[in-house]
C-alpha cells in the first residue's frame, strides 16, 4: 500500500510552543484522525504539510513528493478545509465557483453544483447569511470539486450539530471508497473518529504519543476500575494516568490483555479515544501514578 503522506522527524519551534520530532504516515485509501487537546499542535501539523509555516527540521512527502520542492504539484491534488471558510461574507456560492475554476485546472462545475444540491446550499445566497454548518459544507464542496486525491480537514466538525456531522462523515467515507484517496482529519471530537477513522495519530503538547491503527488502539488501551486500596497494589509503570472518584479510582493502562492477566479480578473496560486523551493530559497535570 503506497503512502499518501509521510512526515519524518518534523519539528517547529516557537517561543512558547514546540512541535517536536513528529513522524507518522498515512497509507492510501484510509482516514487518519489527528487528535490532541487544544493547542497540542494539530493545526501546526496541518500548516506544515501545506507549507503555510516553515519547518525547523524534518521532511514531509505528499504523494511521495517533497511538499516544498514540489509544492505546486502537491497542492493541485490536495483539497483543504480549514477552520474558517476564507471567502468574504459578501460572496455567494456562484462567485466561489467563478474564483475556483480559475485557480484549479481540474475544477468541475458539475461536481460543485451537485455537492451544493446535496448540501442544500443556494447558489445566490450570500455567505454572510450562512450558518456555521453551511459554511463548513461549502468549504467541503469547494475542497472536493477539483477531484483531489488527498483531503486535509482541520477541525471541520467543531460547532456543528450531530446531523450535519453525520452527513460530513458519510461523505468522507464515500471519498475513500476507491482506496486510492486518503483523508487527514484533525479534530478534538474523538467520537467522529471512532466512527470513521482507520488510523489515529495522537499529539500531546507538541509531541507524538502514538500513531497506529484505530482497532489496535481500541484493543490495547483499557480503563482499570478499582478501590484506592487495590490501586496501591498496581505497578506504577502500567499506569498512564488515573482519576480518583468517590467509589475509588480509574486508571488508563496501555496493554489491556496483559493487565487482565496481571490484575485478575479487577474490572477492566475498553478505553475510548476521549478517555485516552483525557488520561494522558491529566497525567501531565499530576494525575500520574
Amino acid at each position, binding site marked *: 500500500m503506497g503512502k499518501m503522506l509521510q512526515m519524518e522527524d518534523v519539528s517547529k519551534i516557537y517561543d512558547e510552543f514546540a512541535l517536536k520530532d513528529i513522524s507518522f504516515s498515512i497509507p492510501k485509501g484510509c482516514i487518519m484522525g489527528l487528535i490532541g487537546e487544544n493547542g497540542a499542535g494539530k493545526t501546526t501539523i496541518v500548516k506544515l504539510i501545506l507549507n503555510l509555516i516553515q519547518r525547523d527540521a524534518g521532511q514531509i512527502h505528499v504523494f511521495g513528493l517533497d511538499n516544498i520542492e514540489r509544492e505546486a504539484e502537491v*497542492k493541485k491534488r490536495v483539497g483543504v478545509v480549514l477552520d474558517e471558510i476564507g471567502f468574504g461574507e459578501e460572496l455567494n456560492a456562484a462567485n466561489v465557483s467563478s474564483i475556483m475554476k480559475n485557480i484549479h485546472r481540474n475544477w468541475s462545475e458539475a461536481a460543485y453544483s451537485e455537492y451544493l444540491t446535496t448540501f442544500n446550499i443556494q447558489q445566490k445566497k450570500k455567505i454572510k447569511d450562512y450558518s456555521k454548518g453551511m459554511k463548513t459544507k461549502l468549504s467541503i464542496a469547494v475542497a472536493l470539486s477539483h477531484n483531489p486525491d488527498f483531503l486535509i480537514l482541520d477541525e471541520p466538525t467543531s460547532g456543528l450539530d450531530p446531523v450535519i456531522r453525520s452527513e460530513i462523515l458519510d461523505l468522507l467515507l464515500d471519498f475513500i471508497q476507491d482506496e486510492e484517496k486518503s483523508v487527514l482529519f484533525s479534530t478534538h471530537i474523538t467520537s467522529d473518529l471512532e466512527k470513521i477513522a482507520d488510523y489515529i495519530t495522537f499529539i500531546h503538547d507538541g509531541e507524538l504519543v502514538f500513531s497506529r491503527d484505530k482497532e489496535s488502539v481500541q484493543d490495547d488501551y483499557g480503563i482499570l476500575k478499582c478501590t484506592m486500596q487495590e490501586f496501591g497494589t498496581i505497578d506504577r509503570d502500567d499506569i498512564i494516568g488515573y482519576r480518583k472518584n468517590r467509589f475509588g479510582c480509574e486508571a488508563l493502562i496501555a496493554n489491556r490483555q496483559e493487565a487482565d492477566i496481571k490484575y485478575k479480578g479487577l474490572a477492566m473496560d475498553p478505553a475510548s479515544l476521549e478517555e485516552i486523551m483525557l488520561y494522558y493530559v491529566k497525567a501531565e497535570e499530576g494525575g500520574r501514578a
Partner: protein
Amino acid sequence: MKGLMIKDFLTLKKSIATMLLMNAFFLVFAYAGGDPSYAVSMTAIMFSMLTLTSMSYDQMTKWDRYALSMPVSRKEVVISKYLLAILLSTASVLLSFTASFFLILPKSDMSAQELMLVAYTVFVVSQVYIAIVLPLIYKFGVERTRIISIGVLALPMVFVLLFVKSGMQMPGEEQLLFALKCSPLPVMLIVGCSFLTSLKIYRNTEF
C-alpha cells in the same frame, strides 16, 4: 492569478459601486467650484484606499492562508495585489479625467493640457503611494499601516514646509514639468523595488 483577481473584484464590488457614487458627488462639487482637478485627485485618493480595503478583507477572512493551501504561489498573491492597486488607480484617474474633461472643463478656466498634467501628476503620486503602502501592509498589517500611511501622506508636506522655512527657492514650473516628464522610469523603478520588498516579506510570513 486570474482567480485571485476575480476574487478581489467580486469582494470589492460593493465598495467600487460606493466609490463610483462618491465620484459622482466629487464631480458635482468640482462642477460647482469650476475646478476639475478636485474631482480627479479626490477620486484617485478614494480608489487608492480600495486596495487597503481588499487586504483588510483578506486579513479578516484569513484568505491568504486559504489561497496558499491551493495551487497558488506566494509570488502570484503579491503580483495580484500590485496589479489590483495599479488597475484601480489607473481606472480611477482615467474615469475622473474623462468625466471632468467633458463635464467640467468647458466651464472652467483650466486648459485641457493643464487638466492632463493634473491627471498625470495624480497618477504618479498614486503609484508612489501604492509603492510605499503595500510593503508596509505586508510587514505591519492593514490597521497599523492605515496609521503609518497618514504619516506617509503628511511627509511630503513636512518636506515642503522645511524647504520653504530653510529659505531655499521652490522649484519653478519648468523644473516641475521636467521632473514629471522624467518620472516614468523612476516610478517604475520605485514600484519594482516595492514589489520585490513585498515579495521578500510575504515569502517569510507564516500563516
